């Protein structure tokens, strides 16, 4: 039986526990044993320790990585930033022995150590590489019935690809998330702004108007080129923008259409038979149409 350490981060457990529920559900259904990473913390987010120094970044990430290493498991994240930050930290630790040495000293002071053996996965790559599209296809209970999906992989899941152990063949033309949606019976065409930033993150915290304007530009292209039933998101931060951010735009009367949005973990969990109320508990944009289409088809 496959085992994986579930790394929650911050947004998932506190803002969107419905994603946490979905991740736990889908891992169970796919026959993966969940190992709790007790004592794990924030990845840490790019604007915190990484903005203080490279050592600060490496130390704080090594804390989390060491917990997974102690349990002998790899790590699965639902958040792109957690994926990016910790993979980059892993990469730096390999590339800069002098920083690794300092990190080792600091970790030792709090009774921990990290040898660099942990691999960090995101939901997309985990399903794609560790589960496999065929297995997923066999296990789903509800087919997506031609549901038209606009996918958003998320910047931190794509770049810097050099620091990531695996990923897309062409990070400017991502296909994995599209293939996952399609194997479940959806339609997920490419669109021209597929790799554009959604605007969530530091921009949203420091210049919210500009962030939402950037997001709207992307949404407009999605609407014009695809007019999808659903946006399928590979990163919890992007999901916050696609869901709550979109609701905000609608509230401000800056948007006159709605595109419901789900995290890949939520969509997969629903297809595997999760309780819809729990799996979509925090969604701001109503998902009724999407759910009917999925459930109605069986």
């Amino acid at each position, binding site marked *: 039986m496959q085992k994986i350490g579930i790394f*929650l981060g*911050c*947004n998932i*457990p*506190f*803002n969107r*526990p419905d994603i*946490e*529920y979905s991740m736990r559900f889908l891992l169970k259904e796919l026959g993966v044993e969940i190992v709790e*990473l*007790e*004592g*794990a*913390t*924030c990845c*840490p*987010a790019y*604007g*915190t*320790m*990484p*903005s*203080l*120094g*490279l*050592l*600060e970044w490496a*130390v*704080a990430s090594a804390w989390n990585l060491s917990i997974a290493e102690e349990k002998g498991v790899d790590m699965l994240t639902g958040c792109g930033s957690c994926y*990016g930050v910790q993979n980059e930290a892993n990469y730096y630790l390999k590339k800069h022995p002098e920083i690794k040495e300092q990190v080792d000293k*600091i*970790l030792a*002071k*709090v009774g*921990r150590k990290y040898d660099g053996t942990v691999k960090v996965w995101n939901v997309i790559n985990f399903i794609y590489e560790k589960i496999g599209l065929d297995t997923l296809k066999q296990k789903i209970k509800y087919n997506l019935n031609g549901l038209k999906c606009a996918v958003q992989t998320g*910047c*931190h899941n*794509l*770049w*810097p*690809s*050099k620091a990531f152990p695996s990923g897309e063949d062409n*990070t400017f033309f991502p296909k994995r998330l599209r293939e996952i949606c399609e194997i479940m019976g959806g339609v997920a065409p490419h669109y021209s702004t597929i*790799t554009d*930033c959604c*605007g969530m*993150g*530091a*921009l949203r*915290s*420091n*210049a919210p108007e*500009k962030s939402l*304007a*950037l997001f709207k*530009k992307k949404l407009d292209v999605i609407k014009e080129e695809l007019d999808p039933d659903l946006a399928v998101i590979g990163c919890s931060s992007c999901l916050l923008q696609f869901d709550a951010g979109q609701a905000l735009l609608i509230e401000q009367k800056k948007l006159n259409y709605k595109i419901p949005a789900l995290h890949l973990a939520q969509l997969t969990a629903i297809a595997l038979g999760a309780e819809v109320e*729990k*799996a979509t*508990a*925090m969604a701001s944009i109503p998902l009724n149409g999407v759910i009917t289409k999925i459930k109605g088809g069986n």
Partner: protein
Amino acid sequence: MEEGGVNVIDLTQGDESFVKELIALGADELRECIQCGKCGATCPMALAGLEFFIKRIVHAANLGLRDILLEDSSVWGCQSCNRCVEICPMDIKPYEVIQAVRRAAVKVEACPANTYEGLRNLYRFGHAVFPKGFEERRKKVGLPEKPPTALSFDEFRKKYQELLRQTILEEIAPFPLD
């Protein structure tokens, strides 16, 4: 910009020691930038219309224009999307330049207040993002009130705080570390 609209940057303000500081803070390939502009059209900060975005930041950093970089809070709007790192032909890792400027800014407390908020949360709870009312949300989906992170384990949280106190946070945090 001066009152009345005069907008001339005095290049001799450029301070080479600031360039060296940034290089030491992680922007190690900074000087190799040839200003080809490739990052300029891909940077979310540029597309969203921030005054200072990656291409200009790298150039200003190379000129050593400390005041301009530290007075403008644009660097704190960087999404860390790393697309610039992916496409930079000179491999200067432009995002590392942003991080270096942030690191220099933190040292002189030239950063937005919410930076400290994140750091404080990280230190206190182990989580930089720590919104209120999460217990209710978690209950709604049938999960325990607290996730099994450092938040649930005091001994881990204490150790984590001890870990953070070994870093520069000890020197720069404007909040008590106890």
